[in-house]
């Protein structure tokens, strides 16, 4: 020890204390174990509508070119899966005709990320086994499926019923309201857009025209206004004599319909705005599933130590700035 060292004064100095605290914090990073912690993960069944109307290109892709609803939905699912906390599980299903088709039971999102991501990327409208699109029936059955495999539901669709619903009435939901939580995701733009048409070899050949699709469902009882239609005859022309006209060959997201379906089944509704727009609404709608995790305390300790060191260095010039007025020589 050097005699005459002002140890007491040095020990009381704020800068010494700050530096010493920083050193203690850094040394603590070696001693502190990882802190146990529970996080909220999700277990979700994602059912993707792969019917014809999902081929409508009314989104803009990352390269600025028009992108189909299905491609945007896939990009959104992939970014959702990549962002879920480890331990979350995702099952994947397709929807077309009137039912969901389960591709695989829930898969863990971190250890098995590569096959999960690859399977989502491989989703294609060509996997469809029928051309009908009975959205309400598909949604109701998807809810049953999610209940069976004990997950929440993420149902991605544009809500276009093909053929249209008879008299526009929503079929009754027979399940228990709120038994399965989840999210109906409305996909598509709000303006009507033409639906691409493909030939039997899968090549695009143009767009559907008004006469190509069923514009009105003429099964079952006629609607109430049928009597006022031209050429109405109760036996021979119960739906009127004219061919149905309409815009069923064009497609936009049927938001009112999907919101009504969501309300009926106790699910939440969100619109797909782009690849990053699924995480927040799903987290709000899904059942939180506690997952064991751990928190690394080192960044917190290290960050505090860095701040202390920077403050110690900045204190000099800042102090000088404050002190300067009294030190500058006054002009006589």
């Amino acid at each position, binding site marked *: 020890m*050097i005699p*005459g*060292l*002002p140890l007491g004064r*040095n*020990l009381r*100095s704020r*800068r*010494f204390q700050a*530096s*010493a605290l*920083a*050193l203690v914090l*850094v*040394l603590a*990073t*070696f001693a502190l174990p990882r802190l146990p912690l529970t996080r909220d993960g999700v277990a979700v069944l994602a059912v993707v509508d792969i019917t014809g109307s999902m081929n409508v290109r009314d989104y803009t892709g990352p390269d600025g070119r028009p992108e189909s609803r299905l491609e945007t939905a896939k990009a959104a699912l992939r970014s959702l899966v990549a962002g879920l906390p480890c331990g979350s599980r995702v*099952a994947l299903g*397709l929807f077309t005709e009137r*039912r969901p*088709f*389960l*591709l*695989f*039971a829930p*898969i*863990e999102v971190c*250890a*098995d990320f*590569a*096959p*999960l991501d*690859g*399977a989502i990327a*491989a989703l*294609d409208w060509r*996997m*469809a*086994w*029928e051309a009908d699109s009975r959205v309400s029936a598909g949604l109701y059955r998807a809810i049953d*499926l999610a209940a069976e495999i004990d997950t929440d539901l993420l149902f991605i669709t544009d809500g276009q019923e093909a053929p249209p619903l008879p008299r526009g009435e929503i079929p009754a939901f027979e399940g228990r309201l709120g038994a399965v939580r989840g999210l109906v995701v409305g996909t598509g733009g709000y303006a009507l857009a033409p639906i691409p048409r493909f030939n039997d070899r899968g090549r695009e050949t143009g767009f559907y025209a008004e006469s190509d699709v069923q514009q009105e469902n003429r099964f079952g009882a006629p609607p109430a206004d049928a009597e006022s239609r031209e050429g109405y005859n109760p036996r021979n022309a119960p739906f009127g004599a004219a061919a149905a006209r309409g815009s069923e060959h064009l497609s936009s997201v049927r938001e009112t319909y999907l919101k009504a379906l969501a309300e009926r089944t106790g699910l939440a509704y969100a619109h797909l705005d782009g690849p990053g727009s699924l995480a927040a609404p799903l987290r709000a709608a899904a059942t939180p599933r506690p997952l064991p995790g751990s928190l690394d305390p*080192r*960044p917190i300790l*290290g*960050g505090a*130590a*860095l701040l202390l*060191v*920077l403050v*110690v*260095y*900045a*204190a*000099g*010039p800042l102090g*000088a700035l404050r002190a*300067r007025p009294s*030190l*500058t*020589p006054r002009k006589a």
Partner: protein
Amino acid sequence: MTRLSVLSEASRLGAEQPLLLWLLPLALLPLWLSPRRATPLPSLGAVPSDTLSRGIGLVLRGAGCLAVGALVLALAGPYRSGARVTRTGIGAEVSMLIDRSGSMNETFAGRQPSGAEESKAAASRRILGDFVGSRAHDLFAVTAFSTAPMLVLPMTDRHAAVRAAIQAIDRPGLDYTNVARGLGMALAQFGSGRPDASRVLLLVSDGAAVIDPRVQDGLRAAFARIRPNLYWLFLRTKGSPGIADKPTGEDTPQAAPERHLDLFFRSLAVPYRAFEAEGPEAVAAAIRQIEGLERDPIPYVETRPRRDLAGFAYALAALGLAILVAAKLIAVDLRRSGAPRIRAAAPVPPRTIAA
């Protein structure tokens, strides 16, 4: 170390929060600023310059740079990713093509499953589930087909994911058995990545369908290119025609699709075996036989766990901080150590000197 190995070593370094590395210039701060008390002094020239003081000054600045830089580095979470080691094990690339047509949900007796009787789908789910994961280095891809082929899982070594895909195969099936397009997709599942691996195409179905002559040529070409070992596990319903049964009437593909699919497979010039299973035990026996046949070496990649380097960075930071703290502890003011007293109201702004 050669230059190449240095490069490959460097390419394995990474950070979890690389954006934080933009804070690294903060490490230069100690070159301009001093953490030490400012002592008012008319001019640094008043203190004679000596090598020791300059040395101590340099060390202190260096320690400051080290502390700040190492802390920023540690916060960014540096790591060295694990090396990927290619090893050789016993296994194969298995592309499974699974029939999901509605009839798979019936029992081998052609009835709705009840009591102890399993459906064909449930039996294949159980037995295939055991098959996956029984050998650590098999790779699997799963394709389903009914009217259209469906890519369920791309080729992967993640057996938990494959089992999850197999768990789904006893869900209610779809309409028809359109085997041709399914075969095309199952063949496409073999990547070009492992040319020396043994390849297995395992078709599990309870029926067959006519393969369109227009598609046949394409399939033949794909089989000739990929050269997989082909196994057809035919889950035969009791009383229905088997693979070898000739129809009583005209022998056309429409009348006996199973027989003609078998003939088509035989004509492909790839190793081919058909197993006709009329019950769960026969399915299990067939799978065991396939397992025994496929005993070829397969290269597989093992990734060593990555190494966390944050500890090193914290140790460096601790070293820098320890030097700074020690310097603070033994700091001596000129004013206290008998150096000439300087008035605070000196006409020159104060300068800082290393004390």
